């Protein structure tokens, strides 16, 4: 099974698991959002940051400290 097909099942399954009610319009909007976001999310999950050292409690007002 392709990732895309499994992803198509995510919306009804996810809504059901949370007990969230959705009408047809909700589902149409969610399907459009899913088509936009899911492929790059899958790509993001495969992104290998290598030996990237974490930056705990990052101060976003300043550059990161040396790794």
């Amino acid at each position: 099974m392709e990732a895309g097909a499994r992803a198509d099942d995510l919306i009804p399954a996810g809504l059901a698991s949370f007990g969230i009610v959705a009408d047809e319009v909700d589902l149409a909007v969610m399907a459009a959002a899913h088509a936009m976001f899911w492929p790059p999310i899958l790509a993001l999950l495969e992104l290998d940051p290598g030996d990237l050292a974490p930056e705990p409690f990052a101060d976003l007002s300043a550059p990161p400290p040396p790794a």
Partner: protein
Amino acid sequence: MSGDAVDLTLRGQAAALAAGEADAGELLDATLARIESRNPAINAVVETFPERSREMLAAAPAGPLRGVPVVIKDEWPLPWRAQRFGAAQMVATRDPVPAESGPYRALRDAGAVIVGVGNMHELGAGSTGNVSVYGPAHNPWDTERCPGGSSSGPAAAVAARLVAGAVGADGVGSIRYPAAYCGLTGLKPTFGRSAMAGHHMDGISTTIVSGPLCADAADSRLLASVLFGEELAGGDAAGLRIGIVRDSVTDDVADPVRDACEEAIRALIEATGGSLIEVDLPDLEAAALATVLIANSEGMAGLSPSRLNSLDPELSPIGRGLLKYRMLLPAAATVKAHQVRTLMRRRLAAIYSDVDVLAWPTVPAVAPPLQAPLVALPSGTQTADQVNVRGAALANLTGVPAISVPVGFEGGLPIALQLQAAWGRDELLLDAAEALERANERRWVEAIPPLAETAEPSGA
């Protein structure tokens, strides 16, 4: 003078009032009359409160904006009005209540007079401004076009010369998109540097900042100084080292936008005696997605299945669907998004040792139609939201400042260049924007939409 003062720049109004050449009460009345006459065509200002404005004026201290009218986005509470976030329901961790927000206090203490609340894209969740509980704001350059979002109303109000300055907020490009679409100068400050207290996401969001929307860089410097609580000194941007990347943010762009931005960069190099440096900055698409995921996850603090099952029926269908979709986003992706944030912050720290600013188009195409916010790019026709985020998100993800400046027109609609700098170098961005204005003889910052051509601006 006071009737004409409504068409002055922000600093021109402040100077005229301070010199006694204009009367603050008359300027307030003229501004309210201007809003009443021009606003129906653009729906930029969703509420005025003349008595509150007069009370602010009566109590205004002798600050840098004493008596100057401004608009504030519907994202900030006021002591007499809770924010609505452009929505029938906010779904936040705490219910909105009237309050003294940081931007309100900064404006009040500077002597400014808040004359109205600016429209915004519903829940801050769009780059176009075409969805709002108040109905969409319209672009003053073409009222059938998007004004940009989510700070749609503040931008449209300034572009239509209802006021000379407005306060917006930028969590994923929300000051820069409307600045670009409306032909304004919009500054997204370094994270944490501008007033944020009282925002419903203060202490939760790691991307949102308040910032100014004005006609030009000098006005933006003045309003940013108020929001920062410190005077932002001017410099000359001499020897500016401009970094460019080869990526979708520069390549997948409409031809007129690319041409105008490349011309602006050439002009900026010439004006500052600067240089052009090509830099390697991969994974910008991943950075854009990471920003959206982090912003969405932070926005989920107020969500629960029970709340999602009792949403206000007046929320837009898009807003309802997106709120529910957020619940399904995998936590692993958000964790990965934070890794991308670290990666991009380290890359930027290295890049900014070699360049002073990074430059690329703010948005890849001019303002799309309100009824169908699609843009035609070399890669094909796409939704504006999908492609706008590519160029804007990096600054929110990493915390660096960014500014959108007008650099041309296509079909009567503004084109904009974005400049980004290292953390804390907001002043340099304003210096560079002013250098660019001088280089193009202020052609773009002084352009006025037909809707606002009843009087010429003056008073720089």
